[in-house]
């Protein structure tokens, strides 16, 4: 494909062996047929002269330095389309995740790092740093406006931390922070069907950048905070807006 040949001396990959040890059946990482199905269906193919097959080949040939320094790991969305297309179900995104995790934390993209750190700082787990009291205030404010302007919705309710509600609804913090009116259609739908739902003031923010940052410890902290929030209220379902 008009690409200059790169001379590569095959080596044993420390990185690849490490990832294979973590996965059941080694994530099939050594079973690649080099068919290229992954690469042809990957929207990140070609960015920074990389694609999933090439990434895996470089790992297999022990080019750890190249693989672990390539910014391409931040351009794969870990969408798993390659796994779905691959005849051997090879888990390339898991490889990408571990490659991200191998970057020194402070060298990872600032935006993702900052979003994860914000989430850790706040009981809301909001990547935008939204505070729970602001969420409660904004929701109440918007609800009042709706009731005033649209009297048909006078009975509509929005509760926080209501124990025993069937559904604990989480909300992307983009809504309360930048476009609170977007919450209203959802409330109307829930009200119409008589859904028994509540918001919480703990762990309500739906986004999670710590996973994308490949920071296991932070990711686990956030997941546990969210789980506890739902369990403390005794809700039966943890409901996502998507």
């Amino acid at each position: 494909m008009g690409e200059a040949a790169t001379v590569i001396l095959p080596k044993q990959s420390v990185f690849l062996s490490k990832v294979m040890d973590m996965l059941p059946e080694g994530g099939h990482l050594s079973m690649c047929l080099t068919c290229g199905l992954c690469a042809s269906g990957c929207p990140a193919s070609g960015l920074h002269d990389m694609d999933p097959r090439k990434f895996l080949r470089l790992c297999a040939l022990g080019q750890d330095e190249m693989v672990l320094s390539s910014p391409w790991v931040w351009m794969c969305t870990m969408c798993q389309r390659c796994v779905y297309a691959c005849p051997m179900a090879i888990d390339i995104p898991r490889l990408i995740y571990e490659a991200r995790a191998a970057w020194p934390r402070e060298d990872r993209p600032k935006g993702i790092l900052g979003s994860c750190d914000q989430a850790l700082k706040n009981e809301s787990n909001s990547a935008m740093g939204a505070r729970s009291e602001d969420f409660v205030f904004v929701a109440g404010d918007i609800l009042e406006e709706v009731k005033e302007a649209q009297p048909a919705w006078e009975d509509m309710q929005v509760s926080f931390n209501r124990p025993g509600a069937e559904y604990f609804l989480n909300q992307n913090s983009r809504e309360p922070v930048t476009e609170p009116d977007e919450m209203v259609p959802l409330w109307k739908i829930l009200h119409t069907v008589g859904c028994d739902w509540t918001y919480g003031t703990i762990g309500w923010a739906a986004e999670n950048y710590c996973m994308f940052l490949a920071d296991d410890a932070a990711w686990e902290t956030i997941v546990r905070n969210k789980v506890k929030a739902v369990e403390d209220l005794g809700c039966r379902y943890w409901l996502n807006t998507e």
Partner: protein
Amino acid sequence: MYAVRAGLQKFKITPKFEIESIIRLYARWIREGRLKVSSDWNRELGVTFTVQDPCQLVRKTYGDPVAEDLRFVVKSVVGEEHFIEMYPNKSNNYCCGGGGGYLQSGYTEERRAYGDRKLRQIVETGADYCIAPCHNCHSQIHDLSEHSGKHFPVVHLWTLICLSMGCLGENERSYLGEDLASVGL
């Protein structure tokens, strides 16, 4: 949702609750007749829609059954004849490029290059609107639409559901195009 579901597995946590997606509930509520949507509003207008299958929801979580639920909801709301598929779709769909932290990563040019495949896929349907039932998808596809100068509106599903029930308020229409800005008001 995926981050929590995958996290539960990874960190070996067994929660005392179940994880649910609003998309599946929309479909159930419409089937049960609790959500009385209708596509009558679009019979004359004939506005066409395509839909993005979010990777996190479809390929990575519930697979094709939830993609079918999504289509059932969309068709109920806009009319079957006004829905256009993109190809490939469902579990085989292309990621839009809004996932993986891309929107915050600072790699803006790369993110848009990644999204180009999605943009072409949407444009090829010829649909007037793209429905993006996930936040990251919504932000990304909205950006792709604006940045490319195509300016097709990108909407949340809840907007259309309320529109179809005739209860979408005046302030709840930021993402509708001019053609639908006052429908049902």
